[in-house]
Structure formats: C-alpha cells, structure tokens
C-alpha cells in the first residue's frame, strides 16, 4: 500500500519525467498561457538558437497587460505597447499558436480565459510568465508563474526543472458572514502569515468554507497565494470543479470526458496525508478586509484603525510601517472608514469574473435605489471585465446598465489599472479602492496609493467616497446569486 499523499504530491508525481538524485525533477508541462509582456524575448531566444517549439497545441496566447480598455477601434496609441502586442501576434502566427487577438470576443486576462475556455483542467500542470498563474490551482491543477527564460524552456522542451516545495494546508472552516468573500479570506491569510509566509510552500486551501466557495471564489483565493509568497495555491477537485469545466470549448468530450472526470475525482489530499505546516482559520471571525500600506500583509479589518509604527514587532517592520504611512499619506489611529478615495478599480485577474461583477453591480443597484451614485469626490470608478465573454455575460444580465446608472465606467477587458501598463493609472497622490492584488508603491501609477478590497467593498467606497463596512448596506445577495 502506498503512503497517503497530499494533492500536491499527486499532481507532482504524475508529471515527473526525470528525477535527479539531488531532489530536482524534470516536470512535464501540460498547458502554457502566453501574453505579450513576458514572451517576446523567449520567442527571440528560440529563433536565435534555431530551436523548434515542442508542442504548439499546449499553448493559448492573448494580449492582456497592454491593451486599452476604451476606444479599441482606434488600436493601441502607445507605439511601444503596440509593437509588443504586434510582436505577440507575429510570434503566434509564426509558430502556429492559438491566440485570441485584441479584437477577438474571447480576448481577456490570461487567468480568466484559461478556465473560461476549459483550457485549464484539473490534474494538469499549467505555467505562464506571470506570477498570478497560481489562480489555476483552484481547479486542482499544479499552476505557477515563471520567468521569461523558463517560458522559452517550456516552449522548447515542454518541461521545467523544479525543486519540490513543502506542503502547507490552510484550513478554513465555518460559515462566512454576509459581505465577507474569498478576497477577504485571502487578505486575512496574508495578514496572518505575511508576504513571505508561504515562501517555499505549495499551499492547499481546504476546509468546509473552501468547499462551499464557488469556482470564482476559489480562483480569487489561489490567485492571491503568490502574495503570501507561495509557489502555488490549490483546492481539491469536487463536483463544483467538474461542473464548471463541463461543456467548455476545450474541455474533454465523450469517452475522454468520462475518463477525465473519474480521474479528477481522485484529486484531493488523502485522509492521513501529512502537511509540513497547517494553518487553521475560523471563517465566522472574518470581517471585510482593507489594506492600509504598501504590502498586502499590511491589512486590517474594515472596523480597524491605521496602526502605529511604535507597535511594530521589530525595527525592520517599524521602518517599513513608517515608510508605508508616509507613502500612503496616512496617520496612525485613523479609522479605515474615514479614508476617502479618488478612484475605484473593479477588475484584474483577482476579481473580474462574473460573480465579482454581480457583487459590485448589487452595490450599484443599491446606490440607485437610494438616490445615490458614485460620490462627487471620486474622479473615476471603473469596471473592467476579465474577458470579452465575461463582459458579454454581464451585459446579458444587464449589469452594465446598473453600473452606468450609478456613474461607474464600463470598459473593455484587460489587466488595466491593476498594474497600469496601459493608459489606466493613478496620478501621484491619488488614492484608489482596488479589487486587484498588489498595493506596492507605484503599482497602479507612480505615487499612486492603493487599498486592496473585495469588489463589493470597492463599489461601496466609490458610492460613499470613502471606505464603508459593506455589511452596513444589508445586502443579502452579494454572493453572486443570479437575479
């Protein structure tokens, strides 16, 4: 009898092509997402060395980081960005890769379109030259971000050299209180273990709360695993996972489907599997979370006050907190709900799926019903769907009308102001309620100040002009329940 294995062990074992005695393994990669920013040098490397691409059918490409979110008909105005997107188009054409170009209705953020197309499959290994590739672990896949040299390596060999990580279980049990989402779980976990707390680990999220999360919620959670420094995040496959995949354009069909689904049902940690570290969290104790500083670990419950550097645990942290407060233009002791914002951004690979948009639209409808709209001090409140298909689905449900009626802008899909490579960005000193994943200095624009929150919290901050506790609005269908 074999010893009990974690989900990570199972995924790892199934992909070892060659095991070296020093612990390094050559892992086979089943799926590879490619975008315009981290791939041009990889294709150039292939050309310079005269190497062939190993297996074109494992690649799905799309431009997402640089694309404009309005006036698409005009093309990309920024010449440098345009060259990068055109380079992706040319490389995909040259190597015969499946690409959803900017004008394709299926274009979107790589981490949204992979699952949407059924390209992301349970039990697969999936990589992308993007740190948020951990998202796909929501499907019980082994998914992680890589650099450009590794992108080239996978294109040329279909494999990667990897050291196996340790296994961590983050076990969340209990029922989430209304208005508390997967994003809040993710931020609370990072607040607890720190941005390096997951370094060296592959993290599995388990427990009754995780099992009750939608696939969208699981993606949000795994997406943020990288912000805790983890190599990968993952959730066991269950009937939700299988139902989500079924019928998607690239999902297995016929006899393949039956065989695949039977295998996927084995993709969970064995009962007695041993983890190197276990973290337990009670979902019922969680409140909506808001970051106050320049690292995702600088996070608080919405009921909290900006901390005092004098209370920091050590000298390095004290200096960090001081620097963060200065950068953020905040003083110790200020209540989170007193912080006024200039912009709101609802989007990114963390929170731009249909369920996220439904939650935000729910707040927009509440605003209209209460004679409110985006507050006068908020210069811009933008909603950027994760893909063309998410946008179409939202429009079919009429969500765009809810947003527009409340004064939000309704944009074209892409990464947008999560990292501000396109025209969407914060100006120096501007403060933003953002559903994205990083509040680093300058992330959303030089001098910009980012507060990470859930979609409903961002929408509510836009309506009130400052952060509010979403639970005060007494909305009971924030979980993405269809109307």
């Amino acid at each position, binding site marked *: 009898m074999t010893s009990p294995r974690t989900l990570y062990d199972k995924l790892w074992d199934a992909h070892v092509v060659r095991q070296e005695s020093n612990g390094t393994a050559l892992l*086979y990669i089943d799926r590879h997402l490619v975008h315009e920013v981290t791939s041009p040098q990889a294709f150039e490397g292939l050309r310079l060395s005269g190497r062939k691409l190993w297996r074109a059918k494992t690649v799905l490409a799309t431009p997402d980081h640089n694309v404009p979110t309005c006036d698409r008909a005009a093309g990309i105005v920024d010449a440098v960005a345009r060259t990068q997107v055109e380079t992706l188009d040319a490389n995909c054409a040259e190597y015969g890769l499946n690409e959803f170009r900017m004008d394709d209705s299926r274009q979107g953020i790589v981490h949204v379109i992979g699952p949407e197309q059924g390209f992301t*499959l349970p039990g697969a290994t999936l990589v992308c030259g993007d740190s948020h590739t951990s998202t796909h672990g929501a499907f019980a896949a082994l998914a*992680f971000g890589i650099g*450009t040299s590794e992108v080239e390596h996978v294109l040329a060999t279909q494999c990667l050299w990897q*050291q196996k990580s340790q296994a961590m279980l983050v076990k969340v049990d209990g029922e989430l209180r209304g208005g508390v989402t997967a994003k809040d779980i993710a931020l609370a976990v990072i607040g607890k273990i720190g941005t390096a707390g997951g370094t060296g680990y592959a993290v599995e999220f388990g427990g009754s709360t995780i099992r009750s999360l939608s696939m969208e919620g699981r993606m949000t959670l795994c997406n943020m695993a990288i912000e805790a420094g983890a190599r990968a995040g993952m959730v066991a496959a269950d009937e939700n996972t299988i139902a989500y995949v079924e019928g998607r354009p690239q999902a297995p069909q016929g006899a393949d489907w039956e*065989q695949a689904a039977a295998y996927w049902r084995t993709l969970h940690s064995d009962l007695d599997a041993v983890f190197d570290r276990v973290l337990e969290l009670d979902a019922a104790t969680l409140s909506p979370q808001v970051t106050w500083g320049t690292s995702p670990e600088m996070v608080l419950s919405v009921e909290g006050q900006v901390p005092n550097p004098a209370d920091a645990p050590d000298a390095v942290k004290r200096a960090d907190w001081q620097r963060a407060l200065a950068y953020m233009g905040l003083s110790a002791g200020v209540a989170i709900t007193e912080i006024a914002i200039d912009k709101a951004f609802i989007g990114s690979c963390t929170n731009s799926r249909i369920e996220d948009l439904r939650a935000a639209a729910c707040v927009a409808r509440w605003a209209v019903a209460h004679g409110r709209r985006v507050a006068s001090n908020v210069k811009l409140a933008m909603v950027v769907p994760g893909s063309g298909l998410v946008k179409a689905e939202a429009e079919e449900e009429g969500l765009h009308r809810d947003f527009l009626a409340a004064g939000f802008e309704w944009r074209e899909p892409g990464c947008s102001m999560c990292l501000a*490579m396109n025209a969407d960005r914060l100006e120096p000193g501007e403060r933003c309620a953002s559903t994205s994943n990083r509040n*680093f200095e300058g992330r959303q624009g030089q001098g910009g100040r980012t507060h990470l929150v859930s979609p409903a919290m961002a929408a509510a901050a836009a309506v009130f002009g400052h952060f509010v506790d979403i639970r005060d609005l007494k909305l009971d269908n924030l979980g993405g329940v269809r109307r």
Partner: protein
Amino acid sequence: MKPFTSIHGLVAPLDRANVDTDAIIPKQFLKSIKRSGFGPHAFDEWRYLDRGEPGMECAHRPVNPDFILNQARYQRASVLLARENFGCGSSREHAPWALEDYGFRAILAPSFADIFFNNCFKNGLLPIVLGSDVIDRLFLEVWACAGYRLDIDLAAQTVTTPSGEVIPFTVDGERKHRLQNGLDDIALTLQYTDEIKAYEARRRIEAAWLFA
C-alpha cells in the same frame, strides 16, 4: 549567460524588506521586446525625481540624492545587500535583467521570493541566502566602512569579509554547475528528449484528454 566564478565586489546596502519587482523595474519599461538596456531604469522610481518613460536618456535626469545607490561611495557596486523577501511580486525577469545590467553580480539577503530567486540563476546573478543575524552584521559593517568589499567564491561557496571572516553559503549543485559554466538549461534538457517522448507516450494513454 555570463559565467559566475568569483568576484571581489563593492557592496551597496538596500535597507528595506519586501523589495518588490515593481520597484526594481517599473511596469512602463516592460514594454520593451529586448532583454538588454534595463540597467539605467533599475529602481527608477526611487532613483530619479522625475517620471521615467521608456527610451529616455537617463544620464541627465534629476537623481534622488536620498536613494542609497546614488551615493558616491556605492557607485559601481556589484554586490547588493538586502533584506527579507527580496524580489517579491511579479514574475518579470526584467528585474534580474535590470540588476545585472546595472552591474550587480550577487545579492545577499535573509530570504528571496521564489520566482525571482529562480530567475537570477538564468541570468548570471547569484542570490545568496544568509541568516538574519549575519545580514544584520554585514549592514553594520558596510555602513561603517566606505569602500567595503566582499569576496564571493562560488566554487568554495564562501563569502569573505575584509576582516577575513569566512561565511559559508549553500547553493543547489546543479544550479551551481550551470552558473559556473554559463550553461544554457535548454541544451541540457534536450539531452533527455527520449525520456520526454516516453513520458508523453505513456500519458497519451493514461490521460488522453490532455493530448486531444
């Protein structure tokens, strides 16, 4: 890739934790389709007082006198002394490209973010993990002594201070071999082409849906 054997390098101290790759090379410079030329924009937002844009001539931009790397005593440093979780955030390999192009060959820190750590080895840059207490002490020594240099010997896996103290470090054997010889990973992997094909043949049966 430039091989790494040993260096005798000037050390620059960057005393902050969680230095992320957005700070090492801001997003606007990622629009380049080249691997080179990122050095003048390394730490752009901290290093200059104006807003940096791709294609700028950096020699005449206003520099931030408060940024440590701008101090005269740290010019031409090739060893970066850093704090916890260095290189966190985005997977952009432009970060090690920028650091290497700036002139760094080695980075010493108590811990590194995973993807950044991997990326360094692909670019002739040696990330060395040392205990927090050792790093703390090195910071004090660097601050106290202008022109502070360290000897880093990859073959011996040692860092030697000016006082002659020898600090050992660990590095994965395979990575060390590739770094010492400036070897291309892909060429090595392609030696195992038969094994990769055998794996694929097996998986076509076991998990046919991944090959449909």
